[in-house]
């Protein structure tokens, strides 16, 4: 019993996360507070974007986590389909709303940033559009989970949707790039240009990214525990009804 799969046992998972969760939570709060305060109060303005450059500390980490959350769900779905570990399916379920909120933050901060920079809240920029589509995928995934009563059926169907959705999300990303290549020629209007980010912006950004990653882990652990308990509760209630 010394493999990773040991933690796929619900009881073992709950026991382990009992110890891990407080540490992750505290670390994520520390990193987030430190990174955001550093970024907000102690970094200079960009010569072109002015103080709006400070939005980068929220926008880039949330956008990263929006994609990584989906990747994590994809991996968890695959583990469920192949190895039938219930915790894996429940972790995917637990991660979806976190990913949804991350996508929403990325969209909203992007739109708010776009208003002074592009003169409009919304432009059908390929990146923004892709995130809007990703948002729809999250909505569909969550809706399918909540619509199906039987837990195993729901886990199977959402896993299949996650696999198919991933392929179509990639296709959409490519399609959207193709579709809008002509409209925003030349001028790079995207926030995400880490390559050009100077060191003054880079270090607080790294800390913020770490904070978002830790926050995501903490939330997923917490929510997975809740899902495990809810699942056990439903099983107990069903057992009672069976007599």
């Amino acid at each position: 019993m010394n493999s990773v799969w040991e933690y796929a046992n619900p009881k073992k998972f709950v026991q382990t996360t009992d110890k891990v969760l407080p540490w992750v939570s505290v670390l994520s709060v520390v990193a987030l507070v430190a990174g955001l305060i550093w970024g907000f109060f102690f970094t200079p303005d960009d010569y072109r974007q002015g103080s709006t450059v400070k939005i980068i500390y929220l926008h880039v980490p949330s956008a990263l986590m929006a994609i990584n959350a989906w990747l994590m769900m994809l991996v968890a779905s695959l583990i469920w389909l192949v190895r039938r570990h219930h915790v894996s399916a429940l972790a995917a379920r637990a991660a979806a709303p976190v990913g949804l909120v991350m996508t929403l933050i990325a969209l909203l901060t992007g739109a708010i940033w776009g208003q002074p920079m592009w003169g409009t809240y919304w432009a059908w920029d390929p990146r923004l559009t892709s995130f809007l589509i990703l948002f729809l995928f999250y909505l569909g995934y969550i809706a399918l989970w909540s619509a199906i009563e039987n837990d195993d059926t729901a886990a199977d169907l959402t896993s299949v949707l996650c696999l198919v959705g991933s392929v179509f999300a990639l296709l959409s990303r490519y399609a959207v790039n193709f579709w809008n290549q002509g409209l925003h020629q030349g001028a790079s209007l995207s926030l995400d240009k880490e390559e050009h980010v100077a060191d003054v912006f880079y270090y607080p950004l790294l800390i913020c990214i770490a904070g978002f990653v830790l926050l995501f882990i903490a939330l997923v652990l917490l929510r997975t525990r809740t899902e495990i308990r809810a699942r056990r509760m439903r099983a107990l209630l069903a057992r009672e009804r069976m007599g």
Partner: protein
Amino acid sequence: MMPELGKYAETVLSAYAVSILLILGLVLISLIRARHIKRRLQEVETKAKKHG
């Protein structure tokens, strides 16, 4: 204390406000649901043990 945000003060502050509110909301909902489910499960478990 407040840094000089210039003409973009509103933009930056609203972005931070929206994001922090959303994160806090998500954390709060997750915590409330975690406590709620934990309590319900305990109730169901004690009941199940009583009836065998």
